[in-house]
Each structure stands twice: as C-alpha cells, then as structure tokens.
C-alpha cells in the first residue's frame, strides 16, 4: 500500500478540465517524479494534495485512511508540506523566523502565554535542521531577501523538511536555479527522502528526474498515463510518453 493514494481525481476550471480522473501514488522514503507537458495538470494535483485547491471527484487515502484537506493547514497537520515555486518566504525575515513563521516556539510559563518567543530554542532547532540537511545557509540572522537564490531555496526546503513527517511536494524547485544550485537542491531532496519522507518532485528537466527520482508518473491531459521505474528509463522514453508518441508501448 502506498503512503498516499489518489484515485480518479477530477478538477475543472470553468470549461478547462485540469484533472480528468487522474490517479497518483506516493511511497514513503522514495522520490516520486510527476512529469507531463505544460497544462497536463501537475500543479493542480499537487495543490489538491497539499490542501490549496479542492477536487470535485475522486478519493484520497493517506496510510489507508480517507482524507480530505480543506486548506493547507489540514494537510500540514497530517505532516504534508509544500515547497512552492515562488518559495513563499518573507524576504525581510531571517531564516529562523521564516522556518518558524506561524509555528513559533513560545517561552514557557506566563511569558509564553503573553506571546513571547523562545528565540534561542528556535535558533538551536534551526541549526539542527540546516546541519542535518547539509543546507548551505550561513547567516541565520540576515534577511533571506539579501541571500542568493540557492540559499533561499535551502531555507524553503529546510522549512518543509523541518515540519513534514510524511510528504513534501516540490513544484519545479530548480526552475530558477543555476547548475550548482540545482545540484544542491537535488542533494537536499535526497537527504529528505533518506529520512523516510515521501518526496514528490515536479520538474521539466528529464535528466534531473532520472537522476533523483525512484519512480516517475506521467500525466497527460489530466490523466496518469504511465508509471515508470526511473532506473531503467531514458530521456527519450520519458519525452515520448509525455507527448503521447510512445502510447502503445506503455501499459
């Protein structure tokens, strides 16, 4: 049984059918790549499974239990986090503050009740998280807005990794990054996976997908058309399945 199973997902936007009965599976401790042409419905799937969008038909089970996420908070409370393409960081806050935004550690006792934060505990824990991931965040007290794209990405990934206990979605995490930074992010993704978390990676880079993913699921026009073991696949095959040229050859 997969960690998360989505079956027959339907979502329309007016006359556009974004998801047309799509299935999707996520395994714990694996990187599952979700690929497909532009408009195939990848982002819609991720948004639904992370609670930012709702589905019209279908069924989602998490560890065998039926779940419905009415909002991101509901998904988060099940240990599901998302690294958004725009990273969703506050540029004026430092990495620690971003990591803990809306989940700050309060001081104990009366001060805590008054809303005082335990900055030391927050920082210590952040150091742990960043070290654990080997993240390249050097300055814990500088606004993330002044940092490089790679460092911002590290902060965003670390935030999700710190809070996710089951699943992290990455929607095109490397689209804005250079070669070195991309390698860093893929490294982060592997480390997160090694912690036993189910990682979902949306990417347009086939070499990248083949490099990091364990299984690859292909969406086309709102349906899953293939599940591929990445170990024995090639860029040509993936592109063929995505565009429909290889239809006959895939079960």
């Amino acid at each position, binding site marked *: 049984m997969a960690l998360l199973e989505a079956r027959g997902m339907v979502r329309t936007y007016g006359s556009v059918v974004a998801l047309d009965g799509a299935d999707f599976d996520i395994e714990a401790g694996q990187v599952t790549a979700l690929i497909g042409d532009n408009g195939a419905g990848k982002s819609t799937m991720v948004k639904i499974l992370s609670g930012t969008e709702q589905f019209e038909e279908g069924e989602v089970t998490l560890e065998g239990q039926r779940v419905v996420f009415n*909002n991101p908070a509901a998904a988060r409370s099940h240990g599901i986090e998302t690294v958004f393409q725009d990273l*969703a960081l506050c*540029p004026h*806050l430092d990495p620690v503050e971003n990591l803990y935004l809306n989940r700050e550690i309060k001081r104990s006792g009366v001060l805590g009740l008054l809303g005082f934060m335990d900055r030391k505990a927050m920082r210590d824990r952040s150091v742990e998280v960043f070290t654990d991931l080997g993240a390249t965040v*050097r300055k*814990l007290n500088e606004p993330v807005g002044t940092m490089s794209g790679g460092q911002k990405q590290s902060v965003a990934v670390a935030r999700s990794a710190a809070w996710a206990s089951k699943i992290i979605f990455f929607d095109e995490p490397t689209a804005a990054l250079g070669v070195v930074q991309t390698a860093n992010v893929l490294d982060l993704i592997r480390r997160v996976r090694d912690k036993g978390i189910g990682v979902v990676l949306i990417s347009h880079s086939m070499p990248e997908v083949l490099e990091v993913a364990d299984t690859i699921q292909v969406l086309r026009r709102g349906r899953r058309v293939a599940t591929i073991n990445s170990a024995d696949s090639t860029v040509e095959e993936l592109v063929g399945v995505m565009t429909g040229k290889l239809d006959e050859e895939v079960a």
Partner: protein
Amino acid sequence: MSNPTKTSSRDVQDMIESEQISIIQRISRVQALQIVIVLLTIVVIFSVMAPDAFLTVFNLRAILMNTSILVVLGIGVTFVIITAGIDLSIGSVLVFSSVISAMVMGNLGATGWVTALIGLGVALLSGAAWGFLNGFLVAKAQVPALIVTLGTMGAALGLARVITGGIDLYEIPEVMVDVIGFGNLFGEVPNLVVLAAFACLIGGIVLHLTRFGLTTYAVGSNPEACRRVGVKMDRHLIAVYMISGTTAGLAGWMSIAYFQQTSIGGQSLTPLLVIAGVVIGGTSLFGGIGSIFGSVIGLLIPVVLQSGFIIIGVESYWQDVVIGVFLIAAVYVDSRRRQKAARGSGRKPKRFQIGGVQGKSSKKEGIK
C-alpha cells in the same frame, strides 16, 4: 551521507558566530543607526551655535514633552506601516477620543483619579473602536488603507465636531492636568514623557519579542507567504489597526491633560507629521521593515529642529523645509536599499520574486 563533517561543523561555527553580532546587526538592519547619527549631528550643531540655550535641562524637557504625544501616535503608525499599510485617521481619532473622554469626565463631575482613569478607558476604547473599523474595512472589505483611513479621518473629526458643536471642552480633572500634564518624576522628568516612554517600551516589546510582532513584519514582507503558512491575515490586520487606534486614543487623553482642553481644530497636520517621522526613522512604506526606536528618533528630529531654529533665530518654518528633505531622502534610501537587495540576489524583479529568465534557460538545457 555525502556531507563531510568538516563542512557541517564550519557551517555551524559560522551560524554561531553570526549570531553573536546579532544585536548590532538587528539595529543596523532597521536602519535606525544612521538616523541616530543624524539626530546627534543636529543636536551637536545647535549646541555649538547656542551653547547656553539649546543644551539646557529646560529646553530638553520642552523638546521631550513636545514629542511625547507624537511618539505615542507613532507607535501605532509604526505597526501599521510595517504591514505595508497606512493610517491617516490618527489625528482625527485623537480628537474624537479626547472629546468623548472629556465629555464623560465632565459628566462624572468629579475631579479625582477615578474620573481621570475612566476618561482614559473611554479614550482607549474609542480609539480601539475606530481602529477596528479601519482594520475591518482594510482586511475584510479590501478597501485600500489610504482610502479607508482618509474616510475615517474625515468621519471621526466630523463626528467630534457634531458632538461638540465645534466648541472645545475645558472641563478636565485637575489631577490629570497636574500629574499627567505637568507633573514630574524625580522632580525632573515630565510624567508625560514617562508615560510616552512606557508606551514605547510596551510597543517595542510587543513588536520585537512576540509572535504578534514577528507576524506583523511577515504580513508586510510577504502576505502570500503568510497565507500559505496559515497566518490569520484578517485578524492580524484588524489587530494592528486597533493598536493604531488605541495609541491615538491614549494620545488624545494625554493631549487633554497637556493642553487642559480638547483640540478639535489643531490636529489636521498631525497624521502627516507622524507618518513623516516614522518613515524618517527607517520604517519602510513598502512594509516588512521598521522599529519603535527608529520612530522615536524620527519623531524627535522635527521637534529638535524647531526648537533649535527658534533658539538660533532662524524662522522656524525652515523646519518644514528640512523635514521635507529628510523625508524624501529617507524614502530614497529605503527604495535604493530594496533595489540593492533585489540585485544582490541576482535578479531584478520588483519584490524579491523567484523565477524569471534564468529559469527558462535552465529548463531548456534540461530537456535537450
């Protein structure tokens, strides 16, 4: 794991080292340091030009007293501007609150502390109510803050005039005038200043040490990011505008103690003065940056200039000119800083967005 221990321990070392200079960084981060230097420079210049008139206890007390009410208003405005909002209604809310407060105290007839404290409660509540209205309209009805508070600026003053028939109220409890308006702590420090300093202390603690304060910065920094992590944006904005209303209410109560009357006609420029001071103090109109300390300094500058100009015999209208220059300079520095921050991370978009040209090219490489 491919992460060599050497690297990670150095990372940790860096993190710990960077934490040790955190206090200094935090201060320079709010840009308050530069503005302190500006203020000190002004003080030094006037002190040199008029050694035995400017730097006297008498004059310093006068400066602090004249700044007190503005500073209390500045607390709330700082919170609001950090969320990338604006509150033009503070002057009118001050007037409205002082009028309601004076009427209640007048009707109670008594002149003692009980009356004065009831008056304080009324002023705070009336301010909070206006703040709630502002916040509600900004957050829930999604009317731009500039328009909402421009509207309530007119409405609050209009209502104050309707209620009083435009005539100021003079029936103020004696203890209030004696103790709050003109009393001193340790014989030297005006109680009005003590009260303002206390309010600033509370405001600063809330802004810099609590979750509420952090959320205030976050809301101004990236509202979308806040929404995604589940911050209750509407509630927070309403609370922030209520803080601004409440500090305006407190300022109203202080003003009737100080002037021994309401000042219905005297506050039309107040919001602009306060906003200018807060912005000069380093709080960014674009949101996400600011401090109470900076606002205090920024609000002291105009008062110090005015006092100094009078003493050295320059027409005090020059103060307005200088403040105008400072204001534009402060916003210029702020927007330069923002541009630099955007450039520093290798991108040009206006607000720290991720994505763009680089992304497309790397995507293509991937597919090839």
